[in-house]
């Protein structure tokens, strides 16, 4: 899941893209490959994005979460046979682990809806003689009567060899007055030896107190050994013949197997989206071809999760945007979160996902960017933080996107208020000219009216449109007080505030 043309890395971080990527991660190797290539829908693909979101939402509405979980568990358990299928196509000789995995795959796809096809059923039937209890696979005699015959011959001659060798061991052990002779080499203590070593025992090395010996092969063992070598070769040839035949059958089904792999990838991707939809109560947004971002009761799941863990509740965001607008409100009042929510919804919609909102009407944007607070522009060399902020802005505007969604958090906050206001107005004008949709959060006064854009204010986490230049208190001094600043400090701040235009 990549969107380098849609969103830069820092904006992605702030708008929860890495979180979304994790939430949508597939569970199978098939899904992972497809997911790695997943791109957002482009301008003009509104219909496709809409259809995809509706498809996901519809499945989420009809499929019980338990079934989604069970299907994902099946997907996670499937072996990745893509390389095996590719080798089969190239007429490679497949081996038993390959057949084992193909058989497992063909079993597994029968438990998933819409994946099994004629090829997977044909492969399952071809490999059926080798299936064993618990899903195991063995190149069984049933594949070929020649193989069965070769194995019987090998078993017989092996038994003959074991018996002959066993007799030789037993005789040597008896002669050496030992219970057994273990291993190919053994030690005989000279003290235990009455006379020379017994027949069949060859001395490899002599020392003062012991002999290192091996047991020679007698005539019967040697003859059996030779016959066994021939029998082993016959079994090997018969096994290879069966593998060749099975490989050829797999090659004939390779196209269908590849199609099943593609279906698995699609299913995995879809189920991840369905799970996300169910978990966060998402709905399919109306995807439109003009700049619009209208959300009703929308949520920002990364923060929603965090609040839930802390036993708190996310206050949903409702706002209608069709152009850049100003957003004001007290510190810690929810301005940034409101903008993150908007950005997240735009991102989710761009990938054809249902969005975490009661209703949404969203455009496909070709650029989603965040500027200002939170974007960690590290000043480099002689660049101040203000200069870095302008450089970032320049980078965003240079893209010349056709339909951008831009979120600006306290732009130009690090310069003089008068020039900050001027720069913010200029930015909003530029965004309006560019046909952008978005919000610019600020504590600076007069910007909305000067830029001729709508003005929204956040109060108690709720957004409402306000008249042109209505000033909204930052509540900063009250906040400082509640955060433990001492009384003298707070009183001094209120004294200083009197006489300014921003009185309580």
């Amino acid at each position, binding site marked *: 899941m990549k969107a380098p043309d849609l969103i830069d890395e820092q904006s992605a971080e702030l708008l929860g893209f890495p979180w979304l990527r994790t939430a949508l991660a597939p569970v199978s190797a098939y899904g992972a490959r497809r997911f790695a290539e997943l791109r957002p829908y482009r301008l003009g693909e509104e219909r496709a994005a809409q259809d995809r979101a509706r498809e996901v939402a519809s499945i989420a509405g009809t499929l019980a979460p338990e079934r989604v979980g069970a299907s994902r568990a099946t997907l996670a358990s499937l*072996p990745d046979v893509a390389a095996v299928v590719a080798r089969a196509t190239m007429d490679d000789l497949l*081996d*038993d*682990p390959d057949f*084992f*995995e193909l058989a497992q795959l063909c079993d597994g796809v029968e438990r998933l809806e819409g994946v099994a096809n004629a090829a997977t059923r044909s492969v399952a039937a071809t490999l059926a003689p080798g299936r*064993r209890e*618990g899903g*195991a*696979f*063995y*190149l069984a005699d049933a594949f070929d009567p020649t193989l069965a015959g070769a*194995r019987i011959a*090998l*078993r017989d001659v*092996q038994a003959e060899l*074991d018996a002959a060798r066993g007799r030789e061991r037993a005789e040597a052990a008896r002669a050496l007055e*030992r*219970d*057994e*002779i*273990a*291993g190919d*080499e*053994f*030690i*005989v*203590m000279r003290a235990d030896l009455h006379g020379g070593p017994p027949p069949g025992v060859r001395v490899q*090395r002599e*020392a*003062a*107190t*012991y002999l*290192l010996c091996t047991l020679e092969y007698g005539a019967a063992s040697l003859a059996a050994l030779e016959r066994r070598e021939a029998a*082993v070769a016959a*079994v*090997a040839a018969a*096994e*290879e013949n069966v*593998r060749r035949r099975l490989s050829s059958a797999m090659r004939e089904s390779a196209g269908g197997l590849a199609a099943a792999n593609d279906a698995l990838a699609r299913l995995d991707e879809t189920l991840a989206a369905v799970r996300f939809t169910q978990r966060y109560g998402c709905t399919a947004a109306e995807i439109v071809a003009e700049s619009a971002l209208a959300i009703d009761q929308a949520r920002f799941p990364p923060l929603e999760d965090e609040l839930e863990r802390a036993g708190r509740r996310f206050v949903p965001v409702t706002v209608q945007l069709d152009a850049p607008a100003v957003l004001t409100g007290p510190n810690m009042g929810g301005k940034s979160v409101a903008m993150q929510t908007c950005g997240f919804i735009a991102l989710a919609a761009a990938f054809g996902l249902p969005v975490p909102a009661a209703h949404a009407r969203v455009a496909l944007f070709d650029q989603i960017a965040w500027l200002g607070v939170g974007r960690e522009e590290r000043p480099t060399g002689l660049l101040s933080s203000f200069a870095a902020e302008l450089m970032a802005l320049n980078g965003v505007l240079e893209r010349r996107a056709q339909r951008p969604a831009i979120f600006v958090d306290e732009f130009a906050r690090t310069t003089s208020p008068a020039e900050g206001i001027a720069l913010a107005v200029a930015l909003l004008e530029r965004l309006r000219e560019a046909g952008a949709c978005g919000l610019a959060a600020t504590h600076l006064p007069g910007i909305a009216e000067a830029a001729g854009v709508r003005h929204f204010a956040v109060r108690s986490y709720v957004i409402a449109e306000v008249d042109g230049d209505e000033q909204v208190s930052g509540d900063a001094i009250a906040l400082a007080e509640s955060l433990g600043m001492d009384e003298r400090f707070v009183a001094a701040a209120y004294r200083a505030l009197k006489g300014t235009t921003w009185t309580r």
Partner: protein
Amino acid sequence: MRAGARLLELARARGARAVFVVGTAKGVGKTTALRAIYDAACAANLSVGLASVGYRARFPLRAGTLFATARTLLPATPAVEILQIAPLETSAGALLYARTLHDGSYDVIGPSTASGVRESLAFLGADSDVVLLDGAIDRLAMLASSPGAIVVSCGAAGAKSQPQAVEDVAALAARLRVRAADPTADALEIVGAFTATAADELMRRGERRQIVVTDPTQIALNGAALARALAGLRVRCRRPLEVVAATVCALAPERNFEPESFLRAVAQATGLPSFDVCAGREAA
């Protein structure tokens, strides 16, 4: 005397369903000892699971043996019953569990992590009467968290002289046989490895409390330092290991020891039932 049968008997007498054979070095007869135990288990009609810790060992296996190997090491012939390709890695690639249906020589290998070893033991143990594990000394820590009996192997290949080989195996046995901590007595818990520096410092301070490690493989002491620490401190562990026997291999390409005296010396130094599998002897 049947060494394999005796080793198996000693392990099973302690209720162990898994037997780990660990050596003081390479070439000290670990695999020979394991093969003897394997043969004994087969002769007793026990179903056997086999794995190796971290490295690869080739074994002649009988039909019906469950074993861990790597996908890349599976022979084309004779075909085996493939039970599972596990999501675990060995040094030779993906781990695969199989059952032999024909006698033959097979490469046995196992996972390279402690959790992987535990998983392998669980898998093999679910369908076997006894699981045998070939374990290199540098992978000892992996065995610590898995229940089973331990056989320590030593030999001429692992030391330049017989006294050195005896000292090495005695130290290993002493280290692995550290007793369980007394839960009612004062204890100083050691987190991580218990090193020579830590031991010297505790002895200098005259520490009287129990020095408690999680398991004996955390004791990173050898030779004289280990002997000093075990004599001067009350070293204990939370999870004691079950060391049941020692095996010796007096012969190596570079040097040979006198088998009889080597076996006797190892038995005396370790206090363990000791066996020379190649000579078919048990120390009196």
